[in-house]
């Protein structure tokens, strides 16, 4: 205990903690609960995928009410450098959102009347156009571009096509950051869609539509080589600063609320993801779990294991609801928290997001269509137990 800390300070802190805890419990209890649809689709064949996805969008209330006449930004999930594959598997079969899933969603949005659809991602350490990055990854952007009228792509890992970054603040004040400076595309849209790969994550336990938002932050500001005063011109690293808290972002951007706070990545990453998803609210959340990988978010993870075929797509208007159902469909308990799989060494992003009122993770409050509790096509939780039983546990590789 610090010598200067008085009994009155402790009482004040305890009261404040209880008050905040109460507020968070109140927000969690009132966190939005909506409908989440689970679609069955064993392959990425459009003949199977399109009807499945169309049915799901109908089940959650129709796509038209979300996208009609709107500029829709779709954040896809292309984590890590394209040069890594899990074995010989194409990236869309393991850890990238599959291009056919992107094309199907884009096609349905176009049919539902979206005015403009912008595909967004912050690919690894490059200012190259996103279309070129997709080609490098072995994906054909034309199939996405031709799926609907007015489809555009933007690399959001730097300033991009705008003259300045857009500042988006966290309405609740933020766990770590009060706000973020982001590529303009995250502000210049009416609707924001997170189209993620459903998988585990070495640091955050689970990757879904919330965790996908980690990649909206430009590394020119939030990377290890970010400019000190102003953003760097080019992205050259990953978001290691988010993980380690080793430095503040460029001074031009909102600074961390408490730079002396905990530096453990299992503490920071879930909170930063929640801050990002608060600053840039998600209107439509889709998890691609048709084919995915076990053991982590990419092949570079030490625990990365194999490609699996759960044959699922999960969609909802609320990202916490959607991620909760996705976790349950993977065999995990969405009410789990630190110390319990898949959050053995981190806090639950879902719990943190629930506590700031983004959405509930309580399956009892979520209307789930197309899935019932215990229906697990690929049991990620069991595979995780087996893997770790063999001693294959590990953090980032």
């Amino acid at each position, binding site marked *: 205990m610090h010598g200067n800390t008085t009994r009155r300070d402790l009482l004040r802190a305890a009261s404040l903690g209880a008050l905040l805890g109460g507020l968070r419990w109140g927000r969690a209890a009132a966190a939005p609960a909506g409908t989440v649809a689970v679609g069955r689709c064993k392959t990425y064949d459009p003949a199977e995928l399109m009807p499945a996805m169309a049915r799901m969008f109908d089940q959650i209330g129709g796509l038209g009410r979300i996208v009609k006449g709107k500029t829709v930004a779709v954040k896809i999930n292309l984590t890590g450098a394209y040069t*890594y594959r899990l074995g*010989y598997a194409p990236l869309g079969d393991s850890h990238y959102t599959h291009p056919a899933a992107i094309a199907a969603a884009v096609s349905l949005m176009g049919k539902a009347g979206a005015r403009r659809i912008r595909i967004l991602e912050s690919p690894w*350490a490059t200012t190259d*156009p996103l279309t*070129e990055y997709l*080609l*490098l990854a072995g994906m054909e952007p034309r199939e996405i571009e031709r799926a609907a009228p007015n489809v555009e792509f933007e690399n959001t890992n730097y300033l991009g*096509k705008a003259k300045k970054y857009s500042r988006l603040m966290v309405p609740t004040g933020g766990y770590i950051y009060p706000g973020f400076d982001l590529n303009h595309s995250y502000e210049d849209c009416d609707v924001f869609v997170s189209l993620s790969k459903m998988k585990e994550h070495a640091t955050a336990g689970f990757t879904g539509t919330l965790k996908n938002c980690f990649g909206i932050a430009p590394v020119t500001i939030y990377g290890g080589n970010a400019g000190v005063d102003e953003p760097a011109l080019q992205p*050259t*690293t990953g978001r290691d600063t988010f993980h380690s808290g080793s430095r503040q972002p460029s001074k031009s951007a909102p600074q961390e609320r408490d730079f002396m706070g905990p530096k453990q990545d299992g503490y920071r990453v879930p909170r930063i993801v929640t801050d990002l998803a608060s600053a840039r609210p998600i209107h439509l959340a889709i998890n691609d779990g048709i084919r995915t990988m076990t053991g982590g978010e990419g092949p570079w993870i030490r625990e990365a294991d194999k490609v699996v075929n759960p044959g699922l797509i999960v969609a909802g208007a609320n990202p916490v609801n959607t991620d909760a159902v996705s976790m349950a469909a993977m065999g995990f308990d969405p009410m789990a928290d630190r110390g319990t799989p898949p959050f053995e060494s981190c806090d639950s992003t879902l719990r943190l997001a629930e506590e700031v009122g983004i959405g509930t993770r309580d399956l009892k409050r979520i209307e789930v269509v197309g899935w019932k509790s215990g229906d697990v096509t690929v049991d990620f939780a069991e595979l995780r137990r087996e893997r770790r039983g063999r001693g294959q546990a590990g953090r980032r590789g």
Partner: protein
Amino acid sequence: MPSGLTPFRWPATWKGSSALEALDGTPFDCLVCEKGAAPGGVQGLMIADPAAPPDGVSITEGVWPGVQMARGQAAASSGPTGNPWVDSNGWKIRLEGALHPGARVWVDAKPTAGALAASFPRAIADCAAYGGRWIVTLDEGLAGGIAQGNADAVAAWKRIAGAARFFKDHDAWSGYAPVAALGIVSDFSGDNEFMGQELLNLAARTNQQAGVILKDKASAASFAGLRAAIYADAKPPEPGLRSLIMTFVQSGGTLITGPNWGPAPGTPSSGTELPGYAWRAAGKGRVALAREEFSDPYTLANEAVLVVSHRYDSVRFWNAGSAGFSFTASPAGKRAVVQMLFYTDRGVASVSVRVAGKYRTGKLWTLDGADARPLEMDLQKDAVELHLPTVSQYAAAELEA
């Protein structure tokens, strides 16, 4: 034919005719040694003085191929993107080959201090894959070890000889032509030496195979098969060359050039957003006209890749670490070979390689086996994807349409 020779630099520490026995059973048939330094009793071997190469041979100074290590060898030195920097002789062999048509290019490059004996076969492959030959040069330690019969050194020597034998046996591949989407037009000398040569070097580092087009030898055939050409020389092209290049553009090619081209060709147009460039149309083709003179070959090489588009990459790797390649095809295009170089010292596993073209069958060659192995292939619309077993240093995929 002299150009079919396999050169070996006679180590200064190998004394006496008995040392020649080390060459028994090896493919080395030409001893390279400075005048007066040849061993006595040489029979059936050619002696070549590097200052006066044999007929049909052009000798150029090269680099020890591999990932460039930082001081202390603790970490790889990085290129501008933070990727490990790779030294390779490929671009130089292609340039020397263009400058000396019909000649076999020999590369004179000494091993770096501390070079692993296991990395010598890669030095052979790094030259041979591009149609050249490394003058096999042992370092003092390895030469001494071989002379003393040290088991490790002798084993390394056998692997070196095996690699040299492999390329002697596959010399027919040297007659295949490079498959390139990008050509670089220059004289690669004088004011244009730095920009021209570095462009060749750095295009390879961006995983592109660039064709060498010499200004004074250019013809319509020089542009055959190309999607784009760079003209970045300091002075405008002569009328004949200008006409040749514009004919290429008119028929659908793309020219990447800058203010030094002279009056802007074609008419204003639009194209892929590329900061610093204006697009112009000419016939069926287009011109990416840089607003300022080129000064950084690295930037230009990377921009050229985007102008061409990765859609037209001839070869693309996954899980390969620091890799390079030479992709050549037979004159009729029915057969092709992708020679792959892996510069990391450990082997690479689960490597996938996408090769543009409609190839139906293939086999895999490596330096550690005499026979080719079946190649796992995934046939795609306009390409084939190869799935390699764990490989080290070098592998060649021989493909047939």
